[in-house]
């Protein structure tokens, strides 16, 4: 749908769909298996080299940092198509973009300069980020102390996405001098970093998430001290809709599989799709799925056109899409009956993944409150 609004995206779309089908699809089940989150480096490198070489990982990164300087629409289009096949990869891409956005919004050009143009492979390029956390809501954050021209960080940070894969992480920490928290760039290979085993989570299993502990780890500040909240809000404001795009992609996949299956499966002597209640469920799924796509498209448009209210349009439509998605994936399992509950089909994974996506960038009720706070402010 996004490409209908923006014709320039068409070539990207073709590349992304053929990449998802060709490179990701054959491995979906295998990557969903226990132990979770042990990324197969070779595969990741292979798969990602392609999109990496095409510059897709830097889709929103300005050209001066070797990105391709596209906007939110291209990002959403890409995440959606990838999610239709395996949303774990959308999380990987999103996480790296969140780090990029924090760095850019903080105006930390020297960091972008240091990492992106010369990155050699996915481990260097994909920067870990606690994508499920709104650091402003966290009760405890690591503590940074400043030396003469650098900082060291000590403390624990949980649920760091890509934490056991990437060389670098963008992390929030508190400093003695400021009320607000700050963001730092940390080398995850530093001796002072301890990583847990990959965490057994509900969904998005191909993307590793770990808890880390830091002990006097040297860190480089991103932007100004105490300004973390500001950078996070600038980032999340625009990036919320990308999480909606992921769930819209999951919904598309769910609807598609439900239609294919119910056409084939027979009960009571006819294709299940011909029972009127099955049609009604499919209709509800289709309505929700289409509505979700509209939300994403229109939000992207609002952002591109810099509409006055785009910030809260973005979060409102995103929360709505997540709501719809959780319904759709539940019915998506239902329509396959017992088979929908089995790992041989894609529906149970979508049922898990959509809920995991819903929790990106903070918990639902707190995102809701943030929305209304912004609206009434």
């Amino acid at each position, binding site marked *: 749908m996004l490409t209908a609004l923006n014709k320039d995206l068409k070539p990207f779309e073709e590349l992304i769909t053929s990449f998802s089908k060709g490179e990701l699809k054959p491995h979906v089940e295998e990557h969903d298996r226990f132990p979770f989150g042990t990324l197969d480096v070779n595969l990741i490198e292979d798969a990602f080299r392609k999109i990496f070489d095409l510059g897709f990982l830097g889709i929103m990164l300005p050209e001066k940092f070797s990105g391709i300087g596209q906007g939110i629409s291209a990002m959403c289009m890409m995440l959606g198509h990838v999610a239709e096949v395996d949303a774990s990869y959308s999380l990987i891409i999103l996480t790296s973009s969140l780090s990029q956005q924090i760095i850019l919004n903080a105006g930390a050009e020297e960091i972008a300069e240091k990492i992106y143009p010369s990155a050699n492979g996915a481990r260097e390029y994909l920067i870990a980020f606690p994508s499920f956390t709104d650091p402003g809501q966290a*009760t405890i954050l690591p503590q940074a102390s400043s030396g003469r021209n650098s900082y060291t960080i000590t403390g624990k940070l949980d649920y760091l996405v890509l934490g056991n894969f990437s060389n670098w992480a963008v992390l929030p920490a508190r400093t003695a001098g400021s009320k607000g928290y700050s963001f730092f760039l940390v080398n995850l290979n530093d001796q002072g970093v301890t990583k847990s085993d990959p965490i057994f989570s*509900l969904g998005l299993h191909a993307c590793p998430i770990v808890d880390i502990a830091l002990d006097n780890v040297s860190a480089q500040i991103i932007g100004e001290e105490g300004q973390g909240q500001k950078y996070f809000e600038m980032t999340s404001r625009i990036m919320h809709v990308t999480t909606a795009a992921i769930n819209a992609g999951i919904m598309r996949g769910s609807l598609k599989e439900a239609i294919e299956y119910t056409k084939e499966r027979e*009960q009571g002597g006819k294709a299940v799709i011909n029972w009127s*209640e099955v049609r009604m469920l499919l209709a509800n799924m289709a309505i929700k799925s289409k509505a979700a796509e509209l939300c994403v498209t229109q939000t992207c448009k609002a952002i591109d056109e810099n509409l006055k209210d785009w910030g809260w349009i973005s979060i409102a439509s995103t929360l709505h899409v997540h709501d719809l998605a959780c319904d759709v994936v539940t019915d998506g399992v239902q329509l396959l009956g*017992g088979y929908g509950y089995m790992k041989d089909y894609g529906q*149970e994974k979508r049922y898990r993944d959509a809920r995991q996506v819903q929790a990106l960038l903070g*918990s*639902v009720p707190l995102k809701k409150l943030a929305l209304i706070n912004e609206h009434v402010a």
Partner: protein
Amino acid sequence: MLKRSEVKSLISRFPRFEDNTLSMYYGPRMPKAMIKETEEVVALARKFKEEVVRPLYLDLDRKTHEDLDYIPEEVVKKANELGLYTMWIPKMFGGKGYNMPSLSFFNEEVGSVCLGFANLIGVHYLGMAAVMMLGNTRIMKKILGDVVAGEKTGNPCLISYAITEPTAGTDVEEVDLEARGRLVCHARKVDGGYILNGSKVFISNGHLSTWHTVYAYGDLKRGADTKVALMVRTGMKGFSFGRHENKMGQRACPASVLIFEDCFVPDELVVLNPDLLKSFTKQSPRDINMRHIDYVFSLSRAGVGSFGIGAARGAFEIALKYANETEIDGKPMVDYEWVQCRLAEMYANVRLGRLAYMESNLANQHRGAYNLLQMKPIYYYSKYLPEMYFKMFVTPLLNSRMANWLMSKWYLDWQKPEDQNLTTGLASMAKFSCTDFGVRNCQMALELMGRAGLRHDSGAEKVLRDAKLLQIYEGTNQLNRINLFKSLISPQASPRAAFFEE
């Protein structure tokens, strides 16, 4: 003000008042001792879940992810040691004879920690209900006797219920569909028994069970009219297990493929076939078939309802614990109104659902399958008479033709159609409402907890995975909605409605 006859006529209009307020009518008729007994069951369930289930369930779930072939035999052994597989077997068959409705509360308690665990126990009673509702006392005595013996020897003897086929799931739960479905389990009559061919899929506890209540068909094209119910024992020639499924949740409880290749089942293990029906009823095999299905599901769907409320409660308890232990902006989470309101809603879902499955139990007690055992005199006799008495006088009778005839008559022939409608309709209502509540509460818990709920160690993500199955088995929630309309609404209020769109 009104004449009694007028009152009677007005309250029998749709919605018939008595049928809609069972607790008011039947609550007072409950034997007092049954309440005490139920309290004991709940206490026992709480002890079991804290001492056995909670310390184990997350590791067990992890283990099933690590090793896809893992089957929790030691858990079943433990439950067997604790006597959980004979608790609800009637005394006349050598069991402990706890009242059947109390099983729901047990399911809810254990299910509130782990639905997989609860199913390891609950599904066995589904198998038992299926045997009992076929009315053959000789076979009941044999199978349930094996379960009791298995408890004594320490070799668990479980019963599974095997009706779903690779191409027929919804179809085997409703005769109008069964008549048109693609069935595969064929029973060919031969001298001295049947030759069974075909397969069953998704059979809970399959790999763990000794006995399997299997439906097969004399004529696959006329399944609804030619059903044969047989007992198959693990190890019988021609019977083997296929794979056990890789499921999203409830992983402690395996779902198995059963394969029959020229498996000979002797006549003494044939519970019911169209010929046997003739000995006690003039009704058509199809009607009796539906009645039997309705009877079994009236019990088991109330049971699944209680699993659903287990899930709803589990999710609520996890969310509550989180809210109690977490702060937002320096204030305890539970101090926020919006948190209190979400938790209140989850709590209400639990209680509303419990009312639904209790109502279904009441229907079964007074108008359905439990009515025999729950009549006050029979209840008290069987509760207080010494075991010896059962052994000496009752048990031997079970092999007699008279007992067989009486039981079959009672369960399959004499039941009134309106009672059949009430029990099956309320069971369907409990089934889909409670399981929808279950999934809804899981969703609410996850939303409330954010990333904390996504972690396996929180338990929240597991209950979400577990709960989804409840909307699918024992009839999908779609079939159960249709069944409610068919049995509670249509007879009185929409008599011209047709079912299963020709």
